């Protein structure tokens, strides 16, 4: 809602199967966060609940910034799917 979004990561969008603790840790801290930072996006990869990517950009962000956010997240999610052994159709970009 507004400029406040969470993208929950699941193994399968139909069953909504969750990652276990070790998988979530590897997914968020081992793969996604380094990839997001490498490509120039600071956001929060959080697993205090189920693993999520949280976005809350400055309110001056416009279509260009959102396109850049989407591009970088897509790259990171593709990488993550590969790293997680393509176990999750849930991360389809």
């Amino acid at each position, binding site marked *: *809602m*507004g400029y406040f979004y969470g993208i929950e990561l699941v193994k399968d*969008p139909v069953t*909504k199967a969750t990652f276990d603790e070790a998988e979530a840790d590897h997914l968020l801290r081992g793969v996604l966060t380094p990839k997001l930072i490498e490509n*120039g996006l*600071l956001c929060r990869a959080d697993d*205090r609940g189920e693993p999520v990517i949280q976005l809350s*950009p400055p309110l001056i962000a416009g279509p260009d910034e*959102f396109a850049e956010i989407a591009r970088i997240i897509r790259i990171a999610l593709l990488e993550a799917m590969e790293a997680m052994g393509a176990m999750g159709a849930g991360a389809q970009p």
Partner: protein
Amino acid sequence: MTTAPTSDLQALASAHLWGHFSKLTPEDVGGTTVIERGDGCYVWDTTGKRYLDGLAGLFVSQVGHGRRELAQAMAAQAEKLAYFPVWTYAHPTAVELATRLAAMAPGDLNRVFFTTGGGEAVETAWKLARQFHVLNGEPGRYKVISRNLAYHGTTLGALTITGLEAIKTTFGPMITDAGIKVPNTNSYRATDTSPEALLLPADAIEDAIVAAGPETVAAVFLEPVQNSGGCFTPPEGYFARVREICDRYGVLLVSDEVICAFGRLGDWFGASRLGYQPDMITMAKGLTSGYSPLGGVMISDRIADVPAHDEAFLHGITFGGHPVSCAVALANLDHGARRSPGRGEPTSRPSAPPSRTSETSRSSGMSAGWATSTASSW
């Protein structure tokens, strides 16, 4: 001042800077990204690498980084009066900001108690709720209800309200039996998504009040959209039902808007965006866009005007309502008002909050949300 080379800064950070929510291992602090400057939506680290600030620092930088008019407002205030307390005295910027916030807040939230941040605002709201009940002749009301996984701060009072067990266990016991947890509104994980079933988390608040004994419950603390767990939006009718339950049992409703105010949800306050009337609003973060620390509690006339309130609220914070922070908050709100169509008016109100469906469809839903939000942005 010349900035030291990045490797030196990382080594010094490793030796001396205790990062928040971090281990002191080389992996956690040794390679820390050292952010040096910001401009608009972007920040740069000490190697010159640029990043898009997708979290607004920490849900803070509403108007973006590096705004000269905000820095100038701070410099002018520091030169005129850098510090004086709002304890015994007042100063013009605190008066002006409180007046302005009272005009912006929904309903009769006409008084502001300033703090330096969100955790202190939550502590303040809980203490004020307790005093309100004491003065109303109900001194047994001290407990608070909040939701599973919800983050409300890390000081021991606020941590009692926080629903993240992982950050509490080391520091227990919490304020004994005072913090009661109820289900959150994670509709993505709901097995029954009928409108009535989605409202069960609201009914759970009633069950919790009854189980605890209504005469022991002081307040319910809820974020408009729950941050921790992944931005849980409330189902249609949730807050109307919670308001009804709170009124039925004499419990105060505190809207914790440390994240959700000042444009984050598309209105000045999250409660305005979602159409409910809390008894108190806690705020911080976006109030100054982070240019200087400031938090506070908006308080209803109903609480402030309890006849016995000629009794002092024995609570205070040295830097609460700091003149420089209040000055930059005013400049920040000026900026927001210039960019938002119709100050205080909801800019867009969909008939229902966006649903949390599968990852794939949520991706496209998010784009639609962005487009809507962009039209109503500051």
